[in-house]
Structure formats: C-alpha cells, structure tokens
C-alpha cells in the first residue's frame, strides 16, 4: 500500500524585506526560495542544512505561523497558502510543532496540566473534566507520571520538558508534526530516549514528521527521506539509505564527510568547504553554491541548475 500524502508544498517561497535606511529601498532576504516536497502519513521527511539555510523558516511556513510569499501549500488536498485568520483556525490543529529549546518553549507561569489543556480549551468545547482526563492520559503516553500534572516547567529536566512539548503538540491529534531540531539541545543519552519516543508515537498514531536537523547521525536514525538545503533552495532529495550511501551533490558530500564517525581506524576523507555561507540578501549568481564548490565549472556561475533525477536521487547540480 502506498502511503497517503498529507501535505504537499510546491515552490514555497518566503522573502523578508529588510530596510537599512530611510532612503534606500528595502532589500529582500530570500530565506526560502522555491521548495517543493510532500509529506506522507507515517513517514519521516528530514530537512538538513547548515545554520541560515532556511530550515526554521520552512517550519514556520508549514505550521501556518507565517504566510508564504508565493507558492502553494496543500494539506489534505486543500490549498492554504492564501487563507488567513479564521480559515486557518481548524488547520492549526492538523500541524503542530516541537521546538529546539525545551527551556523556551514552555510558558514558565503555566502548570504542565494547564499547558496540555490549553489546546483543547481554545479549539474544542470539551468540559473541564474531559480536558483533565485527556491531559493525564497524554502525560502517561509520553512517559511522564500523573503527579507531574500540577507542576511548573521549571521543576523538570530538559528531556522531561521536551516530553511535555511532545505531549502538548499531540493534544489536538495532529496529522503532521514539525520537529524543529527537537533533540539538539539535549544530552546524547536523552536524545535517544526522545527519538525513540517520537518513533513509537509515529508508529502508534501514523503521523507524518517533518524533521529538521543539522545532526546527520540523528537524521540517519529517524528519517525515511532526506532533503538537503543550501541557502533557501533544496539541492538534493533522496531516500535515507541512498543519500548516506551515495551522496550526489558536492554540498551533500561535504556535509556527510563532516559527520564525526566513532571509528578511529576508518579512513577520513574530509571535504573542507572554503569560505562562509553567503548572505541570503545577496546570493551568488547561478548555482548559489558555486563560490564554495570544489567541483565548480564555468556554467555554475551563471546558470541556475534545475532539479534532475539521477539514479535514485534528485539533484540540482550541473556537474553530476
């Protein structure tokens, strides 16, 4: 059986105007410049890239916190990219997000139980006891004890807080969960616990995950499909096994070679990228990666590469 598509994004674009002075016309930051992908029920789609490549902007668009500048965002086949305010209300429930920093994502003045009940309070007409019951059930589902219901967030550790964040995101029975670097602020031992919790919940509830990360070992652990992004554009799509076995795009190769491997005898063949990530306000011409690319050729500096299917992967590169 083919997994059902829950979310379809086509050429999603988000530009931020930045004005430097009163007299100059504002310049644009192209945080996201044409990203297309689909999320399927029960599958994990990972987005990988270095800081500033537009991963978190993507998360904000998918969760409907921000509107895309252009492009299409379909959830269950309904285009939401131009709807506003009230129309979106029911969709908020379908897409939920878990943030990187569990210390900032919980309201310090709100008891855990109330934090879990809030989604039900504002979106449904359940009675107080129904909400309480649902919250207590959810607490046990994410591996917390019922007595945690009355506590404040500052009484919990980072891992427990992230469990609370997961519980809150699940209260509205979403179909899509956006995980914005959900484990990168946690200790390695806790990371595994949270990842296992997420996998277990996905199996049980058949959720679609959009997993944003810069940690490739975590991506290897959890993803089904991987999208590599550079400066607001996707450069390579592939299934997890393909991308880790045979990375095509020079940027993907460099990224993978930078992952530490716990094997002192393994031969290291690191590709070191020159220079810095260019400013998204003034991206390089042609392929945005060409100033740093070890394999760049003439055409790269003036023609933007299209995404092509090469073997099992889809790559945007002139060289491969």
């Amino acid at each position, binding site marked *: 059986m083919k997994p059902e598509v829950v979310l379809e994004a086509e050429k999603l674009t988000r530009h931020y105007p930045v004005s430097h002075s009163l007299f100059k016309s504002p310049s644009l930051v192209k945080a996201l410049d044409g990203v297309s992908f689909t999320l399927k029920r029960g599958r994990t789609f990972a987005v990988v890239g270095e800081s500033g490549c537009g991963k978190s902007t993507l998360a904000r668009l998918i969760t409907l916190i921000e509107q895309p500048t252009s492009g299409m965002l379909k959830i269950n086949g309904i285009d939401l990219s131009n709807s506003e305010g009230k129309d979106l209300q029911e969709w908020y429930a379908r897409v939920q997000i878990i943030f990187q920093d569990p210390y900032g994502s919980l309201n310090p003045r709100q*008891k855990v139980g109330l934090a879990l009940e809030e*989604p039900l309070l*504002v979106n449904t007409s359940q009675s107080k006891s129904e909400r309480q019951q649902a919250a207590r059930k959810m607490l046990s589902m994410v591996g917390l004890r019922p*007595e945690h219901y009355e*506590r404040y967030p500052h009484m919990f550790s980072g891992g427990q807080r992230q469990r609370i*964040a997961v519980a809150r995101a699940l209260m509205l029975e979403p179909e899509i969960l956006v995980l914005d670097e959900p484990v990168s602020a946690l200790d390695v031992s806790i990371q595994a616990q949270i990842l296992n919790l997420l996998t277990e919940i996905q199996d049980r509830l058949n959720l679609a995950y959009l997993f944003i990360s810069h940690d490739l070992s975590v991506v290897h652990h959890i993803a089904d499909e991987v999208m590599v992004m550079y400066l607001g554009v996707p450069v390579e799509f592939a299934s997890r096994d393909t991308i880790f076995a045979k990375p095509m795009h020079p940027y993907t190769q460099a990224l993978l070679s930078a992952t530490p491997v716990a094997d002192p005898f393994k031969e290291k063949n690191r590709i070191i990228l020159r220079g810095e990530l260019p400013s998204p306000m003034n991206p390089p011409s042609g392929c945005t990666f060409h100033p740093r690319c070890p394999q760049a050729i003439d055409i790269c500096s003036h023609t933007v590469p299209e995404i092509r299917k090469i073997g099992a992967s889809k790559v945007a590169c002139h060289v491969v």
Partner: protein
Amino acid sequence: MSEAIANQEGFDAQQSGRLALFKEFWSYFSENRGAVIGMIFFFCVVLVAIFANFIAPHSATEQFRDAFLQPPFWQVGGEWRFPLGTDAVGRDVLSRLIYGSRYSLFIGCIVVSVSLVFGVVLGLCAGFFRGKVDIVIMRVMDVVLAFPSLLLALVLVAILGPSLINAMIAIAIVQQPHYVRLTRAAVLGETTKDYVTAARGIGVGKLRLMFVTILPNCMAPLIVQAALSFSSAILDAAALGFLGMGAQPPTPEWGTMLAEAREFILRAWWVVTFPGVAILTTVLAINLMGDGLRDALDPKLKRS
C-alpha cells in the same frame, strides 16, 4: 479514590512550588536590611491607617478652643492631652497625622492601580501589535513624559478643578507612561520566545495570548515599578496639596497640613515638622522596600 489521592498529591506539589518560590524570594529580600525595615515601617503605617479610629486620641477636625498652637508634651507649655501639640485652630496634630495616613495610602493605592491597569493595557497593545498602534501609543507617552511631571499634574488639576480625586487622576496620568514603557519592553522580549509561538501554533486567540500567555511573564518589573511609584504618588499628592491644588482643608492630608501651617514655621515648628517627617519616613520606607523587591525579583541581579 485513587483520583482523590492524585489530586491531593498534585495539591501538595502546587503548594510546595508556591512555598519554594516564596522562600527563594524571601531569602533574597531579607538579605537587604533596609528593605526589611522599610517593610516593617510600611506595615505599621498600614495598621495605623486601618485602626485610626481606635488609635487617634481625638477627632481629626475637632477644635480645642483652649489650646491654639500648643507645643508638644516635652516642651514648656505642652501637655499629654496633645502629644505632638496642636495647630493654629486647636486641632490635635497627632490625630490629624494618624487620620492622614489613610489619605496617603488611599492616594497611593488608587493612583498605582489606575495607572497600572491603563499603562499595562496600552503597553501590551503597543508591544504586541507593533506597527502603527505602537507608534501612536509610544509617541503620545513621549509627549506626556516630556513635561515635568509635577507641572503637568498642576496643569491637569487646574483644568479639572482642585480636589483630592482630580489630583489623583492627574498623578495617575502623569505616572502612566512609565508603566507603558516597561510593559512594552517586557512584552517585546517575551513575544519572540518559543512558548508564545507554540501558543500561536495551537490556535490561541490574540486576547488570550496577550493577557494569559504573555502578561504574567512580564509582571516582575511592573511589581517593582508599582512599589516605587506608590511613594512618588504620595509625594506628588502632598506637593499638590501643599500648593493648594490637592486635598482641600480641613482634610487632614499631610501635604495640605503642611500648607496650612506654613505661616507658623517660625513660631510653632511642630505644626510644620511632623507632617513633613511623616511624608519623609513613609516615602523612604516604601522606596527601601521597592529597592528590595527589585533586587529579589530581577533575575539579572540574582546569583544563581
């Protein structure tokens, strides 16, 4: 049954949470001896104000025709009937001071709550909506701040007419910009945090987001500002009273008492001195307490 136990446990956890917070607060607060002394003095003033009827030896407005400008008991000619002497029309100074504390606290409470409520709402709107709302509110507040506060209060009272209520309204208007600015700054800091974004993502409406999610996290600086502006409200009201624009005689308001006694400053020092000392000590006590509150509530000043 098991649920009852769970509830009980939850209740205990909640209690111990509050208790722990209060203990931490107290350990910081009690380190500052001035703040503790200020608080004790302030509570004494509150008690005096509450029980003025029982403590005061005489009525605040009763005139004793046999004792005009009688000195305090320790001076020649003084007697125990009037421990702090009497004023020019034969009223007991001590009783007037005791009743006057009611007015001072009343002024402080009303002014602080009015300016706090309006200031917080305006600051919350400015910080939350940004854009034009922000610009309009903050520019108006800048204009109010550009005037010397007492002068502006005087002008307002002159327009509204001199009375205690109008003086309080004027002082509240003058103090409000400070609350607006503080609230706006705190809201700007909180709005970008993830828990606010998470609440938005859940679909929490704007009003609930402003007042339930963001506002409780902005309270610490506001509590401190409220404590400190309590004293400046008393001071401003006394100043207005002294200038004849606040409480009108025969109200035993401390500033008004000073104004009435001004002409006797050389002949009968006690009529001027005691209201002045009362204002000074009360304001000082509240300021010390406010400083202690700030130290205890400001996370930046905390040692971890």
